[in-house]
């Protein structure tokens, strides 16, 4: 990838589009520190994080979901959400031995918060929180993954094709969930990779198009959709709107 220049402000909703293999997921992997950029840097709240470890970046308030859902299938749904709190709270073994009581209280409080979070999306899922993740339907697993990313109320949320592998109805449900998130967390910036242009059109306020690892267009949906280069990237000039 080269020559990517992207500014994200609080409250932005950026739709990241581009043909297959254009580097969308790679961009997210670079932002979250899973790949290290060979040149250039990423600045988050004036802190350069280009060379930082993934867990350090996550603790700063950048959360993500994965295209192929990555949850721990053998653990319960609740466990998979609660982990979000402990990872980002710089929790260490010291706390366990010297502030045991506090940890237990936090554990309970976090569990309750997690339940509240899930309730926000789906009432039925609350009843299944103690089920192993592998027994849950696909859409619920996606919700759990989004909850896990959201529980610490990150400053930037990166969604890597949240609707991948879903039928039209499920896609609508997920999109509704994302709109709900948008409304509840006005200050959080969201970057979402999505192939469905209707969805992008509906919820993003800015669209970025990548091709062959380069940014070829940025702007409102209409601007990007009418961009010549974007159109030729998608099936040789066919209009996408």
């Amino acid at each position, binding site marked *: 990838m080269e020559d990517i220049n992207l500014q994200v402000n609080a409250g932005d909703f950026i739709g990241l589009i581009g043909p297959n293999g254009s580097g969308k997921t790679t961009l997210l992997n670079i932002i979250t520190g899973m790949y290290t950029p060979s040149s250039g840097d990423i600045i988050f709240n004036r802190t350069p994080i280009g060379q930082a470890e993934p867990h350090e970046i*996550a603790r700063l308030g950048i959360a993500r979901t994965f295209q192929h859902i990555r949850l721990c299938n053998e653990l*319960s749904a609740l466990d998979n959400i609660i982990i979000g709190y*402990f990872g980002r709270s710089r929790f260490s073994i010291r706390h366990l031995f010297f502030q045991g009581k506090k940890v237990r209280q936090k554990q309970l409080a976090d*569990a309750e918060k997690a339940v509240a979070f899930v309730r926000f999306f789906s009432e039925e899922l609350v009843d299944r929180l103690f089920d192993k993740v592998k027994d849950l339907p696909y859409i619920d697993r996606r919700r759990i993954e989004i909850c896990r990313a959201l529980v610490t109320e990150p400053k930037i949320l990166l969604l890597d094709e949240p609707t991948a592998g879903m039928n039209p109805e499920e896609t609508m449900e997920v999109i509704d969930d994302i709109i709900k998130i948008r409304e509840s967390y006005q200050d959080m910036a969201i970057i979402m990779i999505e192939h469905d242009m209707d969805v992008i059109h509906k919820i993003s306020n800015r669209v970025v198009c990548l091709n062959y690892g380069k940014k070829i267009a940025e702007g409102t949906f209409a601007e990007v959709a009418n961009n010549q280069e974007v159109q030729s990237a998608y099936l040789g000039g066919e209009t996408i709107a």
Partner: protein
Amino acid sequence: MNKLIVLLSETVLFALLILFLIAESVSITILFIVAGFLCAAAVLIFPKKAERIIKPFAKERRTAIIFSMILMAILPFFFTTQPYWLLTLSLAGIYIMLANGLNMQTGTTGLTNFSGAAFFGTGAYTTGLLSVHLGLPGWLTIPAGMFASVLIGAILFFPVLKVKGHYLALVTIAFGLMFNIMLNNTDAIGGPQGISGVKAFAIGGFDFSGMWAIGPFIFSSYANNYWLTLLAAILALAFTRYIYNSPVGLILNYVRDDEWSSKSQGLNISYWKLIAFCCGNALIGLGGALYAHMIGYVAPDLFSFQTSLLLLSMVLLGGMDSIPGVTVAAFVMIVLTEKLRVIQDYRFLIFGLLVIIMIIFRKEGLIPSRVRPYFPKLKSVLMKR
């Protein structure tokens, strides 16, 4: 009502254990074993029914634990004439610590440690050397043994962090072999003969190798060591349970299951892997230290790959990541081999076959680890809705 069921069934189990140990005829022993096997099979075949039997225990957890501790504590009163079985039970207690330490590494965190015996040996040798050559008292040598295990483990820190899966297995197996070669060839620590004459544990002027009596009950060194091991095993189990039920347990599970997602949740996986590795080694070292004081003699033979595999078999047969499972498996495997001298020679073969069968048909082990219930309160609140 539940309380009564718990107390009664624990008393019955306790009585059966004593009978089993005391029984001298082989046919009675085999009868017991067959009955035990049938019970285990029944539990595996009818998990729902088994659940109902276990329910009172889950409800009256505190009573169940305290009462079983009391029973185990008064056990030496029944063995004043056959103290040998107390040694067997102490050995089982030591293996419970070892297996749980290994479980913390391999079962909970997914670090494939195939050199458990090396850390066991480190604990035992350190304690033995300090006791024999420097004459240090037990309350110093035991922590020293634990510390030494953690310290030797530091050699593997780098591999543990950088190497995964098969390769980590290779590194740890090689490490175990290297350790054994070193033990056998270093004359300063006794070479193949090992170290003998390790003094029994002593504290506050009381020597654990001495005899003492309450009324008609005479307690030998076996009983003293039994109580010491029991105390240590209870502490070790309390420690592992505390870790397991705390957020740390969850974090370690997460690190085991998916490294990338753990990283993206802000978990410093290197830190947590080392924590699990060190805690596990400390427990294994504790087992080794107690072993040295109890048996009074350490030799390289015990700390071989065979023992590492035996420890892993305990973890696997009991159930990866399941503290009750691993504890039961370690106890049963040690007591059975000591009780059935006939199978002593065949034990590795039998356990090996059992593990293979278990892996193919029931990976989660005898008593699978459960989904974390968190606080019973929270669960019941959720379930009511």
